[in-house]
């Protein structure tokens, strides 16, 4: 009897709803916490980031047009698909983050709960971030939240699943699209998440996942004129973060500064509010 040939997985980038190799052809090795070889993953380049921004711009228009209720349904579907893949997520977390089975299970629970939490907020955000403003005149005056646009996200480096979701979800819940640079050393849960997103009715381009090094492509994203906001969650506080903030000012991007807390803490509305713009409409009464 012949020995079975092992099917080895080639990890790719997730751009515009498709799994693609890096335009540069580069890849790098990823190891478990114990130094055991896990996989070769694509090493995203500047041009991959550029392509991802193009995809995100196109996807954003589609995603923002969907009703808030529909976005909530789609995010809930993400939670469903994650649930059915939870064994895979747990296994990956155990190996990349060197946690016990019990802790891995808890981490996946938290991650899925976070998806559901943000799924619930999609159609309630307008109620708390919007307003019916009292004005001195015969007008209705409404303020409604609108998505900021394309958000570049430097994902947390150590918390590779819950941290990742905690930065992607607040951006997409309100109708933004994202270009995510994953944790460099722990990219595998993000790759699995991209497979979840690809099968969850999330339109192409809404979430683009680049495995690679933020110190290489972060600057290109920070100064890219077609990126409207940048989340520096995974960038350590320091000179490089400051540099990205300064570059982001070139086209007046919104910036979320480096994150120093614990992703396991109860989420707040801070990040949801970070990626919205307020539109105020005056409407004549009786017209």
């Amino acid at each position: 009897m012949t020995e079975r040939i092992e099917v080895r997985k080639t990890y790719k980038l997730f751009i515009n709803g498709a799994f693609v190799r890096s335009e540069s052809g580069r890849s790098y090795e990823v190891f478990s916490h114990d130094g055991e070889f896990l996989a070769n993953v694509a090493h995203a380049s500047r041009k991959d980031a550029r392509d991802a921004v193009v995809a995100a711009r196109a996807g954003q228009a589609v995603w923002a047009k969907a009703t808030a209720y529909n976005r909530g349904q789609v995010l809930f579907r993400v939670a469903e698909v994650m649930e059915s893949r939870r064994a895979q997520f747990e296994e990956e977390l155990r190996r990349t983050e060197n946690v016990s089975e019990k802790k891995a299970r808890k981490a996946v629970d938290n991650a899925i709960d976070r998806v559901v939490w943000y799924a619930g907020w999609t159609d309630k955000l307008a109620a708390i971030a919007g307003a019916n403003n009292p004005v001195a005149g015969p007008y209705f005056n409404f303020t409604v939240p609108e998505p900021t646009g394309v958000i570049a996200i430097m994902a947390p480096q150590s918390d590779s699943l819950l941290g990742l979701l905690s930065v992607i979800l607040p951006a997409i819940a309100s109708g933004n699209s994202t270009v995510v640079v994953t944790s460099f050393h722990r990219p595998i849960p993000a790759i699995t998440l991209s497979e979840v997103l690809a099968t969850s009715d999330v339109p192409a381009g809404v979430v683009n996942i680049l495995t690679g090094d933020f110190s290489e492509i972060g600057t290109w994203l920070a100064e890219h004129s077609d990126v409207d906001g940048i989340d520096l969650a995974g960038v350590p506080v320091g000179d490089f973060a400051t540099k990205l903030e300064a570059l982001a000012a070139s086209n007046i991007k919104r910036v979320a500064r480096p994150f120093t807390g614990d992703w396991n803490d109860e989420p707040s509305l801070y990040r949801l509010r970070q990626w919205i713009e307020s539109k105020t409409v005056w409407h004549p009464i009786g017209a």
Partner: protein
Amino acid sequence: MTTAAHLVHLAASDLEDARRDEASLRSFISRLPGVDKVGLEARAAALGTRSIKTSAKAQLIDLAIAMVDLTTLEGADTTGKVTQLCAKAVTPDPLDASVPAVAAVCVYGDKVADAKAALSTHPRGAGINVAAVATAFPSGRASLAVKLLDTRDAVDAGADEIDMVIDRGAFLSGRYGQVFEEIQHVKQACGQAHLKVILETGELQTYDNIKRASWIAMLAGADFIKTSTGKVPLAATPANVLLMLEACRDWHRVTGEKIGMKPAGGIRTTKDAMKMLVLVHETTGDEWLTPSLFRIGASTLLNDLLMQRQKLRDGHYSSSRYVTND
């Protein structure tokens, strides 16, 4: 390479002979060597992989902008839309005066007067031609009388260039003579205006047909041969463009005349445009790298060229917010 070898034996007198009557035209066309499909596509693909960077890229972007026939061919075109298009043709990037103007604006015949009026208000407008599509564009399904009237109408309105479509129905039925004569008549109706002959490559089915149609158009007096109307898919593919450029090159070898070439349809990115310029450089040579012999018919391409130009200038990627719509 068979093409070149064959044409070494071809003399200007053979072309004269081909123009004599339908039978001799047919005989000439049937003697054109067949196109090696695999070789053609491989060569076009190989030339498309060439990497052009930094200062060479900057130079080619400006050249490509100067070669653009900025086009609007919609049923919904209005005077306002044409005026806007002309403003963009003159000053493609309102924030950067160093950007060259485009070569021409391309509109339907009834919008020629609007385009002329709009261009006349700009100091740089005089250098920009107005091209009109004519002869029952895009289908070409009308009688010769109507096509000629359509042409004269545009010329009388002031069109500097006429983009005509060949009768693909007649061509595909093998009535080469009819196609040839129609082009001749339209050429006559053009007067001083330059004639671009649209082959509509997407409807010609085979590379051999594209080659034959190119030769018929050149024999009949085309100043330019143009790939497509932009209304049919599979328009200006690199292989189609290469094949037509080879026809221009061969014509030049035999007659010494330079026929222009205009790919149109499906050229949307700077990369696509760079590929076209490489094809020109490698096929007809640098003499064709001028707006008087090479044009790119496009509407969305210009914005991508501008964004790439901004990227080279500023060192970071630009956004469609920094270029004008339409």
